């Protein structure tokens, strides 16, 4: 990239600039500026869909829908998603579903923004709650309540309580629909745990004791990635919530300077000072666990397949729920407003299909995501998977009480400043000072976005 930029910067004017040419150039720029100003201007609001009313009309003929998702075709996620799509198309022969995957949610969101801006949006997109809020505020999203004709579709009551809550935006709009969720779990090296005479923790204090005890002979209890939207930052939020005050109030106001959050950061600082916590990038906890240089890793339950691969059968891997408050993750689906009415109807058929207990069993057992409905756990197709992974049914009930970040747009910005506070704290800055800076920065972001 440096070389490309240097070639561009070498191009310079070699022709003599005359007055007429300069005037023509200025006129061209002015014209371009006027044309560009036609692209912006305050106040014209695109028509927002109504909250509820008659449901979307049924599909009456062949229709194709596209889904922009984060399930790359070569992964277990992509392969399972293709299976779900095939089953849907078999049931609904008039509907063709095309999946357009991206490598991760960050890339997916960037691409979706470009597509929406260009008027080339897919029928269904996938992403996090704050992105759905941006789409809804910009009039680019069709609420689920519009498609279903009600704010409380029948399927909703079958979802875990935390999943239900996650689908609504701050203004009460039912805007999103799930496919699968994950919780933070702790992966342990059971062999190391028992050889050190330790046991899986049921509270954070015991967890700290376990990590400190295991940190010897080249082993560091746990390694985390302290960047934004990673397990390190999520762990900080879980600790704060466990201490009594979550990172955000319900309206998205940050609570970074609460005693609960300060105590949470000091907990991690204490672990670091005792050599029981290290930092890294690119799933460092998984790497350390697999290399037998770590006792435990806190990560998404959906990452079990990768943890298991990293371990490679060298030792017994145990999975437990995190003590106390857990955070839920997993992008939701939403329908974009550029879809035709037939595409919207087909999209709603697809969304309903993927959350049936039978398909949830297929999705969960194929990907490691937790099903959004408890009814999936009793499906016969789920039994072999649960027999191999008994921890799944143990932790799935955590979806009732798990927390997520509020869906406001500035919360993503605030995640980065909270991560900076975490990094500053682990680098030696006083916890209160680091969190004060984060609080101020987050309030600035909230004010700018409000």
């Amino acid at each position, binding site marked *: 990239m440096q070389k490309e930029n240097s070639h561009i910067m070498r191009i310079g004017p070699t022709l003599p600039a005359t007055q007429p040419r300069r005037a023509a150039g200025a006129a061209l720029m002015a014209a371009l500026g006027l044309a560009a100003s036609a692209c912006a201007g305050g106040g014209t609001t695109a028509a927002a869909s109504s909250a509820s009313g008659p449901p979307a009309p049924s599909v009456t003929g062949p229709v194709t829908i596209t889904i922009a998702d984060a399930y790359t075709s070569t992964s277990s996620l992509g392969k399972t998603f293709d299976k779900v799509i095939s089953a849907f198309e078999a049931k609904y022969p008039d509907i063709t579903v095309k999946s357009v995957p991206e490598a991760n949610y960050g890339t997916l969101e960037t691409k979706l923004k470009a597509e929406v801006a260009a008027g080339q949006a897919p029928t269904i997109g996938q992403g996090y709650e704050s992105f759905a809020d941006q789409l809804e505020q910009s009039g680019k999203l069709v609420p689920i309540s519009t498609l279903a004709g009600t704010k409380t579709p029948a399927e909703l009551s079958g979802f875990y309580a935390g999943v239900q809550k996650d689908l609504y935006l701050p203004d009460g709009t039912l805007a999103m629909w799930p496919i699968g969720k994950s919780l933070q779990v702790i992966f342990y090296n059971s062999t190391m745990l028992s050889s050190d005479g330790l046991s899986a923790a049921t509270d954070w204090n015991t967890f700290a004791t376990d990590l400190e005890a295991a940190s010897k002979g080249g082993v560091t209890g746990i390694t985390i990635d302290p*960047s934004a939207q990673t397990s390190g930052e999520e762990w900080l939020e879980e600790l704060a919530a466990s201490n009594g005050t979550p990172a955000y109030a319900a309206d998205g106001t940050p609570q970074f300077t609460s005693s609960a959050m300060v105590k949470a950061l000091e907990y991690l600082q204490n672990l670091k000072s005792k050599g029981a916590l290290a930092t890294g990038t690119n799933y460092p906890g998984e790497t350390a666990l697999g290399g037998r240089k770590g006792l435990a890793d806190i990560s998404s339950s959906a990452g079990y397949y990768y943890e298991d691969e990293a371990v490679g059968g060298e030792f017994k891997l145990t999975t437990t729920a995190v003590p106390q408050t857990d955070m839920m993750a997993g992008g939701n689906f939403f329908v974009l407003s550029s879809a035709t009415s037939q595409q919207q109807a087909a999209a709603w058929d697809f969304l309903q299909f993927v959350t049936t207990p039978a398909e949830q069993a297929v999705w969960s057992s194929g990907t490691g995501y937790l099903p959004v409905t408890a009814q999936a756990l009793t499906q016969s197709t789920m039994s072999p998977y649960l027999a191999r992974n008994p921890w799944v049914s143990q932790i799935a009930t955590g979806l009732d009480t798990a927390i997520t970040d509020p869906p406001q747009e500035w919360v993503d910005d605030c995640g980065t400043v909270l991560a900076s506070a975490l990094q500053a704290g682990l680098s030696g800055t006083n916890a209160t000072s680091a969190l004060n800076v984060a609080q101020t920065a987050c309030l600035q972001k909230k004010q700018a976005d409000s």
Partner: protein
Amino acid sequence: MAETVAPAAGVSQDTGTAARRGRRPRGTRDFRSTPLGWLYSAPAVLIFAGFVIVPTFYTFYVSLWHWNVLNPAMSTYKGLGNYRDLLTDVDPTFTQTLVNSLYFTLGMIVFGTGVSLGLALLLMRGGKAMGAARVMIYLPHATPLIATSIIWVWIFNPQFGFANYLLHLLHLPALQWTQSQSTAMPSVILFSVWHEVGFTTLVFLGGLAVISEETGEAARVDGCGPWREFWYVTWPQLRPVTAFIVVISSITSLQAFTQFYQLTSGGGPNNATTTLSYLVYKEGIVLGDTGYGAALAVVLFLTTVLFTLVRRRTAVGGGDLTA
């Protein structure tokens, strides 16, 4: 009789006095300013205008708005509000970001220029292994920056990385490399110099190759040692090349992004490696604050222009090889 038609494609056809002096005869129009010259230049000019000039002006325009990338019609005019936010933001502060950019740029200029000049002087000595040495030195520069950045993430891994293994062999304490606020930027500089030194060494080699041997021999005959010969004979003649490398290094360093994105994702520990160019990406693309990102891009542009102007003003003798 001498030809009086306009020379084709800027090549003079006249073989008279003016051609011997290297000047065009009076009255002959420069082909490049003829309509045909413009026609030949048009594709390149249009591409440059479309992909560089117009986006630059559009960025200025977007920086004045709270830009809604999903629905531009809902954007709200902020005037200089994004620039005010830039100066008042606390995480990271504008000062910290600017200092990080200048830290990296200065590191690349001083360290990179010094290392490449030293390597070029060594390679000029010749020898059997010099051919292989030149290839080895240039090879990193030929590799894709993103691919080598990924590899160096693992080299810098504090627990499993090759870098700490080397330190261990030398009985030196392990470092946190990109995981520590104090060592993150030096780590990125180290990688960047490794990647770029091949190119700048080649440029220095070219400069050294055209330096006359006679002045050096005369200095040695007069009893000059190697250091005095370098400082009083070689170095003054290398000034134009050095100026070129400094300008190019400073411009590309201010705009560097790939290694920051890959080596220190998220901007480094506590924003230790958040430079202006990285912040443009983070604010404009990741966080979707397009107007604010545009304001940052304008500031980066002005900083780069300032660097170039200062360099041109302070050039001492030897001229300036940039346009």
